[in-house]
C-alpha cells in the first residue's frame, strides 16, 4: 500500500515537471527591439509593398512591410460585392471564360514585373488555379486590367512566373489532361491520351497586354512550380515536375514511388526561333481574352479560336530534363542565374544545380537517357552540390543577394538559411506553423533587398485569439539583415496566402492614380455634368443616366418604371478629387452595390419584381451630408401608364 502511494507521488511529480522539459516556444524567440523595428508611426508609410496572393479567396491583398498592415483587398478572379467587381455591367466581362461567367477562383502565385531582372513594379500577375487563367493588375491603380484564359490546361499551378524583362509569363499545367476533340477517353488511358501543356504568354513591353504566344506539348507529368533563368541563365525556364510516374489515381502513393522526378529546363529563346521559323502548329482551342479599358471604364471579352503549339519531341534543343530527388515543389534560380535550387518535398537533401554545368552537359551530350527523344541529363553532371540535413519537407527558396538562400521547410516548420556557394546551413528559425511560401523583398529577382523575410504559414492553431473552427492564416516577419534571422512580427492574413512578392514602395507610390479625369471618360453612359442627368425608356429597358457629387444624386425622384422592366443605373461620379468615391445601392437589388471612383461611370442592372417606392442611397460616407444623399424610385404594375418622369430638387 505504502509502495503504491510512493509510486503515485513519483508519477504525479513527473507529470508536474514534464512541461518544464518541453523546448522553449516563441515567447523567448523575440528579442527586445523587435517592436521598434516594425513600428510605423501614425502618418508614416511602410517601406515595402507586399502583394500577397489570396489563395481560395481569388483575390490579392496589399500589405505594408514591416508593419504587416493590410492596405487593400484587390479583387481579381472572385466577385467582390463590396465594390461591384463582377456585378456591375462594366466589370462582368472580366470574369467571363470559355465556360461562361465564373465568379470565383483560387489565386496562388504573384509575379511582379521586372526589367533586367529587377522589379519595375508596373504590373502584378496572378494565376487562377481552377479555371486556368492569368490576370494582370495595374500597380498604378491597383486594379485588375486583363485576364487571359489558358486552354489545354487544368490546375494552372505552375504559373505565373516571368522572364527577366517580363517578355513572357508562363503557365504550366498541374493536371495533365486529354486535349482537343478526342477528350472523352478512359482515365486509365492516361499515358497515351493525356498531355501536359506549358504556355508562354507574351507581354507587350509598353502596354503590358498579354497574348498567348505558344504552347509546348510536354509529357503528362504534373507541373508544379517554375522560375525563369536570369542574368547568365536568361533565355531558359525551369519547371519542377512530379508524378513522372504518370499515375492517375491515389497520387499520394503512386506519384511518390520514384527516387527522382525532374526539373524540366526549357530553352525558350530556342522555342522563339522555332516559332519565328514557322515550325509551330496552329491548333483549335477556345479561350477568352478579357481586357479592361480605363477610358471607357468597362471590359470586353473576346473568344479566341486557336493556339500555336510546339512539339519538343520533333523540335530539338527546347526541352531537357534534370533529375531531381523526390517530387520537387519549388525550383528557384539565385540572383546571378547560375544556381537552380530544387526543393524535393520528400527529399532529405536540397540539390543545387549549376547552369554552367548544365550547358556543358548539353554540349557534351552527357545524357542518361531520354523521354520520347527529349534528353535526360545526368544528375551528377549538372549538380553543384547538395545541402545536407536542411530540415524536413523543403518547399521554396528565396535569396538575400548576399550569397545566402532561405528555404522553407513545411514538415519541420522552419526556415533554413544556407550559403549558396558552400552549401552549409548557417541558421534556422521556427515558423508558426508549417510554412509554405516565403517572401524576401526582391527575393526572386536579380536584386534582392535582403532586409526582411515573410513566412506564409499553412497552420495557425493558437497564434491569435481563437475564432471558431476557421482561423486566419498566420504570417511571420523576420529581420534578415544580420547573420542570424530574427523574428519581428506575427500577423494574420486575408484568404489563404500562397506566394507573395514585395518591392520598395518608392517604386510606385508617387505614380498612383488619384482620380479619373472626367473629360477623358469615354463611357457611352458617362455624364459630364449634372445638366445631362436623365431617364430614357427603350422598350422594356429603362436607362437612368445619373450623376453623383457631394451630396446628391441627379435625378433623385424617378417615376414611370414598371414591374419587369430592366432598369440600368448608369452612375457617373463627377468628383475630381482624391478619395471621394460614391456608392450606389437600391433596395431589393439582388446583385450588389456599385462603388464608383471619381470620374468613373458604372452601371447596375436591376429588374424590379414588385410595385412600390424603392429608396436608393450613397453607400460610401462621402461628406457631411452623406446621409442626405438619397433618392426614390417608384415602380408601378406591369403595363401601367404611369408617365416616365424624373427630377431633382423641385419642391411643389
Amino acid at each position, binding site marked *: 500500500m505504502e509502495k503504491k502511494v510512493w509510486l503515485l507521488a513519483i508519477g504525479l511529480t513527473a507529470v508536474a515537471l514534464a512541461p518544464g522539459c518541453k523546448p522553449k516556444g516563441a515567447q523567448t524567440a523575440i528579442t527586445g527591439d523587435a517592436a521598434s523595428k516594425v513600428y510605423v508611426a501614425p502618418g508614416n508609410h511602410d517601406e515595402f509593398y507586399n502583394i500577397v496572393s489570396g489563395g481560395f479567396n481569388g483575390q490579392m491583398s496589399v500589405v505594408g512591410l514591416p508593419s504587416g498592415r493590410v492596405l487593400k483587398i484587390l479583387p481579381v478572379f472572385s466577385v467582390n460585392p463590396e465594390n461591384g467587381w463582377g456585378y456591375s455591367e462594366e466589370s462582368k466581362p472580366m470574369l467571363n471564360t470559355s465556360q461562361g461567367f465564373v465568379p470565383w477562383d483560387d489565386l496562388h502565385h504573384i509575379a511582379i514585373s521586372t526589367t533586367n531582372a529587377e522589379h519595375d513594379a508596373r504590373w502584378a500577375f496572378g494565376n487562377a488555379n481552377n479555371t486556368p487563367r492569368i490576370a494582370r493588375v495595374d500597380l498604378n491603380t491597383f486594379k485588375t486590367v486583363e485576364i487571359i484564359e489558358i486552354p489545354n490546361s487544368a490546375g494552372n499551378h505552375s504559373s505565373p512566373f516571368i522572364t527577366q524583362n517580363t517578355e513572357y509569363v508562363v503557365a504550366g499545367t498541374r493536371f495533365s489532361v486529354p486535349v482537343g476533340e478526342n477528350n472523352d477517353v478512359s482515365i486509365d488511358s492516361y499515358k497515351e491520351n493525356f498531355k501536359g501543356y506549358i504556355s508562354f504568354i507574351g507581354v507587350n513591353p509598353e502596354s503590358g497586354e498579354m497574348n498567348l504566344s505558344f504552347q509546348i506539348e510536354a509529357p503528362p507529368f504534373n507541373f508544379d512550380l517554375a522560375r525563369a533563368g536570369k542574368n547568365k541563365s536568361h533565355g531558359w525556364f525551369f519547371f519542377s515536375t512530379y508524378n513522372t510516374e504518370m499515375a492517375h489515381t491515389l497520387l499520394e502513393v503512386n506519384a511518390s514511388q520514384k527516387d527522382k522526378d525532374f526539373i524540366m529546363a526549357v530553352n525558350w529563346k530556342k522555342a522563339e526561333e522555332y516559332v519565328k521559323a514557322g515550325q509551330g502548329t496552329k491548333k483549335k482551342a477556345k479561350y477568352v481574352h478579357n481586357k479592361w479599358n480605363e477610358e471607357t471604364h468597362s471590359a470586353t471579352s473576346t473568344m479566341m479560336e486557336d493556339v500555336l503549339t510546339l512539339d519538343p519531341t520533333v523540335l530539338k534543343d527546347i526541352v531537357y530534363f534534370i533529375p531531381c530527388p523526390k517530387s520537387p515543389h519549388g525550383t528557384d534560380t539565385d540572383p546571378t542565374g547560375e544556381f537552380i535550387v530544387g526543393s524535393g518535398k520528400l527529399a532529405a537533401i536540397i540539390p543545387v544545380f549549376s547552369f554552367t554545368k548544365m550547358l556543358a552537359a548539353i554540349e557534351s551530350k552527357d545524357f542518361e537517357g531520354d523521354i520520347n527523344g527529349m534528353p535526360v541529363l545526368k544528375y551528377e553532371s549538372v549538380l553543384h552540390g547538395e545541402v545536407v540535413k536542411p530540415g524536413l519537407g523543403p518547399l521554396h527558396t528565396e535569396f538575400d543577394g548576399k550569397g545566402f538562400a532561405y528555404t522553407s521547410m513545411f514538415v519541420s516548420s522552419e526556415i533554413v538559411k544556407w550559403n549558396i556557394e558552400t552549401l552549409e546551413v548557417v541558421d534556422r528559425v521556427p515558423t508558426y506553423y508549417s510554412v509554405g511560401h516565403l517572401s524576401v523583398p526582391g527575393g526572386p529577382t536579380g536584386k534582392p533587398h535582403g532586409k526582411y523575410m515573410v513566412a506564409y504559414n499553412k497552420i495557425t492553431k493558437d497564434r491569435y485569439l481563437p475564432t471558431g473552427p476557421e482561423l486566419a492564416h498566420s504570417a511571420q516577419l523576420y529581420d534578415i539583415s544580420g547573420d542570424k534571422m530574427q523574428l519581428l512580427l506575427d500577423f494574420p492574413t486575408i484568404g489563404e496566402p500562397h506566394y507573395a512578392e514585395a518591392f520598395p514602395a518608392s517604386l510606385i507610390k508617387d505614380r498612383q492614380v488619384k482620380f479619373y479625369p472626367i473629360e477623358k471618360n469615354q463611357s457611352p453612359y458617362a455624364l459630364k455634368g449634372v445638366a445631362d442627368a436623365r431617364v430614357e425608356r427603350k422598350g422594356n429597358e429603362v436607362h437612368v443616366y445619373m450623376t453623383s457629387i457631394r451630396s446628391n444624386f441627379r435625378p433623385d425622384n424617378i417615376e414611370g418604371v414598371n414591374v419587369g422592366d430592366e432598369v440600368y443605373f448608369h452612375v457617373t461620379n463627377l468628383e475630381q*478629387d482624391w478619395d471621394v468615391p460614391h456608392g450606389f445601392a437600391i433596395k431589393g437589388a439582388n446583385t450588389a452595390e456599385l462603388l464608383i471612383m471619381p470620374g468613373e461611370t458604372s452601371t447596375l442592372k436591376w429588374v424590379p419584381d414588385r410595385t412600390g417606392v424603392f429608396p436608393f442611397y450613397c453607400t460610401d460616407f462621402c461628406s*457631411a451630408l452623406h446621409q442626405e444623399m438619397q433618392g426614390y424610385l417608384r415602380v408601378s404594375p406591369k403595363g401601367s401608364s404611369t408617365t416616365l418622369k424624373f427630377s431633382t430638387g423641385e419642391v411643389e
Partner: protein
Amino acid sequence: MKSLSFFNRILVLLAALLIIPSYFTPLWQISLWAPQYPEGLNMKIWIDHLSGNVDQINGVNHYIGMRHIGNEMFPEFSFLIYVIGALVAVGVLAFLIGKRWSLYAFFGLITLFGLAVLADMYRWGYQYGHNLDPKAAIKVEGMSYQPPLIGYKELLNFLAYSGPDTGSWIIMGGVGLLILAIVRDRFEKPALVKNPYTSK
C-alpha cells in the same frame, strides 16, 4: 524740370519691363487647409484666368452656399491685359522722357494700380463671402464667410491664406527699383554745377 541720371533712367526701364512677366505668371493665390485636406487646396489667379483646385474649392464651398467660382466671375479678366499693357507703356515712356516728374508719375500710377487691385480684391472677397445662398445646407453665423485679403484667417474647419503670387512679387520688385531711383534722385549730389566765383 530735373533730368534723371542715366542709372535712374535704367531703373525706371527695368521696373517697366518687370511688369511683363505678369502675363505668364500667377498674380495672386488663395490656399485652404483643413484636417481632411492635409495637402491643401490652392487656387491661383492669373491675368486672365484661374487655375488650381477651383473645382474642389467650389465643391467644398457649396455647402455654405457660396457662389460658384469661375472665370466668368471676374470681369477683370477681360481688361486686365490692357491695363497692365498700359502700365508697361507708361513705364517705358517715363524712361524715354527721363525727367523726375515722369519717374514720380510712373511710381504714382503703379502704386495707385496696386491699391486699386487690393480694393478690387476686397470688394470681390466681400461679395463672395457675404452673398451666401440662404437655402444652403450649412448656415454660417452672421451669413458671412469672407476670405482674408492678405494673410491667414480661420474659417470653420479651414485655415485660409490669401496673398500675392510670383507675378505680383516681380512687379513689387520693380516698384522697389522705382523707390531706389527716387531715393537716389533725391539724395545724390547735385551734378557738378560750375561755381561762378571760382570760374575764370
